[in-house]
Structure formats: C-alpha cells, structure tokens
C-alpha cells in the first residue's frame, strides 16, 4: 500500500482527534519530538518508523503515565544541518519532553552535541553509526535500533563456518558501509576466512555491472554485500541477471534484503542470506501479533524500520509509565529508560546501561518463498549481541 498525502493527513487528523478527546479534563499532553526523514531518499524509512510508533500508541490508547501522547513531527531531510535546526526548534520552541528519530547517522552525529549539552533525552530509532555507542556516546542518548558492528560482526564467523572461507566484498562507499565491512572482516578473518576482493561503489549508483564483472573474475565462494535502498535493489537485480544468483551465494547485512527491497526486486532476492536483529517470519508470538496488527492497520508488510518505531514508542511509554508521567527530572527519566526491559517482536529488549545501546539477538535470515510470498525467514539465531562500546 502506497503512502500518500491524503493518508498522511488522515493519520494526522486521527491522532489529532484522538488527542482532543483524550485531553478532556486530563493532565497535560506528553510531547514527543519526532525528527525523521519525510522527504528524500530515506522518506520511506521515516514513514515506516512513524507508522510503527502510531501502531504502538494505538495499542496503549495513546496514553503514557496517565498523560495523552502527542507527536510533534519534523522532517529530518537528508541534510544534517537541517536535522540540527529541527531538533533545536523542537526543544526551544515546541518545548517537547523528549526527542526521538534520526535515520541518517550523519544527522545523529550532527545533533549529538546539542542534545548532550542541553541535557535533552534522545532515543535514536535508526541511525546506526558505531561512534554513538563509543567515543561520542552520551548519558542522554539511547538507541533502540542497531550499530553497524552489532549487525555485521556476528555474520563473519557464521559465513566462515557455514558457507565458505573465500569471500569477496561489495559495499557502498560511505561511513556506514565501511564500518559494516570492517566489523564483518573482524570476525570473518579471525575464523580463518580470506577476503579475495573488495569493491566500494559510490552511494546512489545506477549500474553495478562493473562490480559484477569484477566478481566474475575473482570467483569467490560467496559475496558479502552492504548496500541500501535503491542501490540494493539495482545490485540484486543485476546480480541475478548476470547469472550469479545461482552460482555464488550472497550474504549481506539485513538492510540489503529488507522487506522494502524485496518488494522492489522480487525473485532476484530469493535465497540471499542476511544478518539482522529481526525478521518478518521470526517465530515469536509477540512478532506474529505485531506483523498481523501492522498489516491490518496499514495494509502492507512491516519492515525492520517499522518494528524499530514500534519498540521505540514502547520504550518511551514504559519509561513514562514507570515515572507516572512525571518527567520533571531528566536524570530520573534516564534511569527509567535504563530499566526498560520487555519481550517484543525482536525478542528480549534491554538497554546496556553502560552505552545505552540495545542488547539484542542477531538472526541469520534467508529470503524464502513460502506460500507464494517472498519474505525473510530465520535460519540461525546467533544469540545475544552486545556492542562492546
């Protein structure tokens, strides 16, 4: 189901009306500043995260700690300086109680110092650059999504042990792509693997035949790839067209074959392995409930981004519940967030109190055609993964 302005208006209206009804004779609304991309290449991610949040807020009747919840949305765009301006505006003009969002790692880094120095609580719901858990971590910043290390590190060893020891790497040439490859290699080389070729392609590539020609020449046992969005779609389709799909196995970070990409390329993605902290077909009752509810409400299959939005809303609501709606002390809020722990669609969710990064299971998934529907199913559970910080 496609997202249109009309639906956006309807949803906003629904939230608005729900709010107006909720407000009657009640306490002041909890204002959550949401900074997500609603335009540009990441627009769909922003939409998915928002829809996930709306779904969870619906389930709790839009209440947290006895207060109605109000989302104040701003467009992150693709420009980090705009993201910073929007965050400043949400804090200083809209006086939001806490902040969430940020899809792009560059934007997350751009707002980090402002958020840290002004002691505002930020819950990052996507941006996965390692540094936010390491040298640039902040007691006021939590992350419910992933780090590039968390997703890619466990896959290296699994590939060396289960697929092959001769691997070629293809990755998008930007910070997150490089970080993912480094994390993958760390465990892959340690397990005795050998990287026979590395190709980095510019972000926003329209043609991968050169990279694929190089692969044909290197003849690796398998390919490890990290690409996202339209890059991933083009790569997968050309990978199949070159006849590589059936001869060289493909393993990727989960984003390369996430549900949004599968929708775009169909068959070409079938059989690809990937590692991620969630899968549509993850067989947990909490997940099945989430997937069903999301499909019913939005008429499409949720992506990992929608799941992250859903869990982020839950984290906020549970922390505010624990404080009974009293957010006057930032330190108490941080403490309440650190204590949030639940079983959600991805399994057990808890924060690392040292880094404020989520500790979670990482799964190896494979795109499988079951009942005439292509989707990711879990083929191995790599256990709890905690970013070393």
């Amino acid at each position, binding site marked *: 189901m*496609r*997202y*249109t*302005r009309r639906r956006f208006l309807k949803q906003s209206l629904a939230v608005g009306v729900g709010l107006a009804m909720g407000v009657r004779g009640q306490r002041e609304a909890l204002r959550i500043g949401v900074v997500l991309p609603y*335009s*540009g*290449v990441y*627009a*769909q991610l922003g*939409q998915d995260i928002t829809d996930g949040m709306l779904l969870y807020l619906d389930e709790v009747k839009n209440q947290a700690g006895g207060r109605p919840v109000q989302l104040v949305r701003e467009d992150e765009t693709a420009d980090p300086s705009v993201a910073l301006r929007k965050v400043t505006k949400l804090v200083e003009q809209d006086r939001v109680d806490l902040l969430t969002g940020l899809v792009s790692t560059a934007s997350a880094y751009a707002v980090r110092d402002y958020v840290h120095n002004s002691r505002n609580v930020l819950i990052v719901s996507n941006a996965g650059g390692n540094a936010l858990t390491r040298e640039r971590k902040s007691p006021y910043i939590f992350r419910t999504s992933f780090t590039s290390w968390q997703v890619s590190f466990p896959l290296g060893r699994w590939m060396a042990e289960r697929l092959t020891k001769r691997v070629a790497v293809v990755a998008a*040439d930007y910070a997150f792509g490089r970080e993912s490859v480094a994390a993958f290699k760390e465990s892959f080389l340690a397990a005795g693997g050998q990287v026979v070729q590395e*190709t*980095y*392609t*510019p972000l*926003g590539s*329209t*043609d991968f*035949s*050169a*990279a694929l*020609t*190089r692969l*044909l*020449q290197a003849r690796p046992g398998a390919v490890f790839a990290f690409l996202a*969005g*339209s*890059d*991933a*779609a*083009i790569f997968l*389709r*050309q990978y*199949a*067209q*070159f*006849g590589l799909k059936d001869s060289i196995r493909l393993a990727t970070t989960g984003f390369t074959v996430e549900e*949004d*990409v599968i*929708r*775009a*390329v*169909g*068959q*070409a993605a079938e059989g690809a392995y990937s590692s991620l902290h969630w899968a549509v077909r993850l067989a947990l009752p909490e997940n099945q409930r989430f997937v069903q509810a999301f499909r019913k409400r939005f008429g499409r299959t949720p992506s990992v981004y929608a799941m992250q939005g859903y869990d982020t809303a839950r984290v906020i609501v549970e922390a505010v519940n624990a404080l009974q709606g009293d957010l006057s002390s930032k330190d108490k809020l941080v403490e309440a967030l650190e204590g949030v722990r639940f079983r959600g669609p991805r399994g057990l969710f808890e924060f690392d109190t040292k880094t404020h990064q989520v500790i979670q299971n990482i799964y190896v998934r494979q795109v499988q055609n079951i009942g005439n529907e292509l989707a990711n199913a879990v083929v191995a559970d790599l256990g709890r993964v905690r970013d070393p910080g």
Partner: protein
Amino acid sequence: MEFYLFVLLNGLAYAALLFLLAAGLSLVYGVGRVLHLAHGGFFMLGGYMGYSLYQWAGNFWLALALAPLLALAVGLITERLVRIVYGPDRALEQVLFTFGLAFVISDLTRFFWGAQVLGVPPPPVLNRPMGLGPVVYPAYPLFLILVGTVVALGLWALMRFTRFGLEVRAAAGHPKMAEALGVPTTQVLRRTYLLGVALAALGGVLAAPRLALAPGLDFTMLILGLIVVVIGGLGSVTGALYGALLVGLADSLGRTFLPQFALAVIFLLMALVLVFRPEGLLGGRR
C-alpha cells in the same frame, strides 16, 4: 579477454540509456535554444508509468509501448507551458522555468507512487544470462544495446531523409534564415520537444528493469544527460551519440578499475573536453 568484453558491453548498455535521454535534450536545445532541465523528470516519469502499466497489464512489452505515449500526453501539456518562455535572450527564464517544472514532476511522482523503491522485472525471455559464443552475458543489457542502435539509426534516417529532419537541421543551423525561407520553426520545435520527451520516457521504461525507481533518479539522470550533451556538443543527435558512448564506456572502465573514482572519471572527461573543445566534440559543425 572475456573480462574486457564484459567491460565493453556494460559500457555500451549504459550508453544506450544515456543516448535515449540525451538525444532529446540535445535536439530541443539545438532547435529552440531551450535547455530543458525537466528532461530527467520525463525519464523518471516514463519509468514510473512503465511500472504502473506493468502492474496493470502484467506485460513488459505493453508497458514499453504505452509508457512513451502516456509521457507524450504529459509532454503536450508541459509543451504549452514551456512555450511561454520560448524565444531568444530568455535563457534565464527558460532555465528557471524548466527547473521548476523538474521539481513539479519530481513531487508529483512522489505523490502518486510514493517514496519506496520500485522495480519492474525484465520480460521472461530476457531475464537470464545468454550465451555469446564461449562466454555468458545477461540478455537484458544486450537488448538495451540493440534498442539503442535501432533508435540511433532511426533518428539518423529521420534527420537525413524526411522533411521534418530537414526542417530540424535548418532550424538548428540558422533559425532566422530558416524562418525567412518559410520553415515553421515554432512548429518544428514543438514536434522536436515531443519527440525528445517520448525518447526520454522510452529510456525510462527500458531502464526500469535495470535501475531502480526511487526519488532522486530524475536529477541523477539529468546531470548525466547534461554531461553527455556537453561532451558531445549541444544540438546534434550525432553529438549525443558520441557523448553517450564516451560517457558510458568511461563510466564502465572507471567503475571496473577505479570503483571509488568512477564519477570523477566522467567529470574529468567533461573537464578535458571543455578545456580543449569548449563547444563539445561535434558542437562546432552542425
């Protein structure tokens, strides 16, 4: 050896798409001195219309045939608008106007098709590797090369042997003289515009199984189209062809041997042409 053949074929397939895009851009400029910055938008629009037609009919060939016609219908409307700013000495207005149009098309496609990545699978016959003597290469890019060649030959024949072609060459070579001799230059420009738009849309549908449809494709393609036209020389089909071949091959070589600097290779090529032949390879003689 096989490796270099692949590099060559990759480059030619890319060049075919670039040619379809740049031919119209170049012709419209040549005939009317209008730099049509919404051209990338029509390329993308063609792709999206192809996607919808494919969803509706389930047949790639039908989508391939109908999408350029639909884009032509849109072109009829935009031509009426662009006509407002026709004329000499109005370059700034034209650039602003067509750039604005590009944004409108960009937002409208976003409004109708959303922001997610969409794709069209190649038709079943072409969705597999194909034997070329001892080597195996995907069939779809070969098909692109074939279409590019056919369109290039068709355009050459159109320019060379028809009255329309004669008028286009006259209007492009010396517009005032052509007008004085009774060539209806505005009419000619109008038809050229529609031809260019249809070609761009055809390129868009053909690109859909190879590229991905997502916001931003229009401006990516516009920039590539402009580079091709700058290298080849504004205003001639042959220039666009040479420009597309050069950019396609340079891109393929760059991506294979210097993947990190692939874009830089193209820009370097453009810079070299601008330094040594500022009018483009074929810009001087039309």
